């Protein structure tokens, strides 16, 4: 099992270089990182994958960006919008992760979208930065929304990913701390282990439904 942080933002989006992120990640027990707008590379024992994050984009923009994606190892993620947009994105081939579900409308991620996400192997992201940095009502709403997502996840079994959205190495958390934070939203150890390998699940080549036997 690879322990992956599904979103970090190195320099110039943050204050830490990607190499420093890799060093700190190794010290904190992480195996791989998805770095937004950063080329894929391996630093020591840590694999850094290129992440493409489409924010506040319309459906047409998302389709164009996904088609334009040249690097096959890139992890493409889209910020969640309303229910119709989310269904469209989840059904789109090439999208790996739907992010920001906690900030979307209450009914933006429903059972239909959950079923589609499970069928198309699109992961739903759990943003740890809200659990870490937010206080009061904002954090309560996020926990409430993630608990709701987990109810759907247990029913439909779509993949989950865990992201720290770290802009600095100070925002990174150790794997044990991440497990603790996930327990706030009702995830047990098994759920957390599966979520750590969520990026590998969504980027793996799908097994064909029909196999030719000669």
């Amino acid at each position, binding site marked *: 099992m690879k322990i992956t942080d599904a979103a970090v933002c*190195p*320099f*110039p989006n943050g*204050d*830490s*270089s*990607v*190499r*420093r992120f890799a*060093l*700190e990640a190794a010290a*904190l027990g992480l195996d791989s990182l998805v770095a937004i707008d950063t080329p894929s590379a391996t630093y020591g024992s840590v694999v850094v994958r290129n992440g493409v994050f489409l924010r506040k984009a319309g459906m047409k923009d998302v389709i164009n960006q996904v088609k334009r994606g040249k690097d096959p190892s890139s992890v493409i993620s889209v910020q969640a919008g309303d229910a119709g947009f989310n269904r469209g994105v989840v059904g789109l081939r090439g999208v790996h992760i739907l992010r920001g579900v906690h900030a979307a409308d209450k009914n933006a991620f429903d059972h239909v979208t959950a079923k589609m996400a499970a069928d198309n192997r699109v992961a739903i992201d759990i943003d740890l930065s809200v*659990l*870490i*940095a937010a*206080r*009061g009502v904002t*954090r309560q709403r996020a926990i409430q929304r993630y608990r709701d997502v987990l109810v759907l996840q247990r029913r439909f079994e779509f993949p989950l990913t865990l992201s720290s959205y770290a802009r*600095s*190495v*100070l*925002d*990174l*958390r*150790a794997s*044990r*701390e991440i497990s*603790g*934070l996930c*327990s*706030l939203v009702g995830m047990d150890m098994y759920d957390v282990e599966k979520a750590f390998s969520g990026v590998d699940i969504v980027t793996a080549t799908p097994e064909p439904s029909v196999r030719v036997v000669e």
Partner: protein
Amino acid sequence: MTVRPPTLRDKRRYLLVRVDPPGVPLDPKELYYAISDAVTSVWGDAMAAIIVQAVICVEGRYAIIRCRRGTEGELSIALSTVTLLRDTRIALRIIAASGTIDSLRDRMQPAIRNPPANANEAPVPEYRFCGKEYVPVHCDGQKVDVIEKGFKNTSRLFLTTEDLETLNATTIPDGI
């Protein structure tokens, strides 16, 4: 009030935490307020009263934090949500948990407890990138923290020696 006999006292646990980034001046009282705020925010007043967190001591960039036995998990979750001390961004890294303070003192890095006498006398190199000048403030193995030169709007960057070598070899205006 007489002191309770040991069998009637609450069992305690102690957590050793390292405060990142290095060089942040640590005041035990301010650290206590930051931790207390985080515990109350995550677990509420009732659970905070059960955890009974306290900062026992601060040595260099290490702190020993006390809690009631059995609540180490809750305290460590709360510690991972501490991001600010006054207006300075910090992260608390939990190193170890123990039933005695003595065993935790052994885990503190000896170099931090006894800093070398001539550590600050070496000439400080300067680096220039993105149109700004930076000076290193902390070096630890491959890790180098640099800070913008000057006393206004100083922002700390977390880099590596390899990044600085790349910067010296080539001029990269907008990327490291």
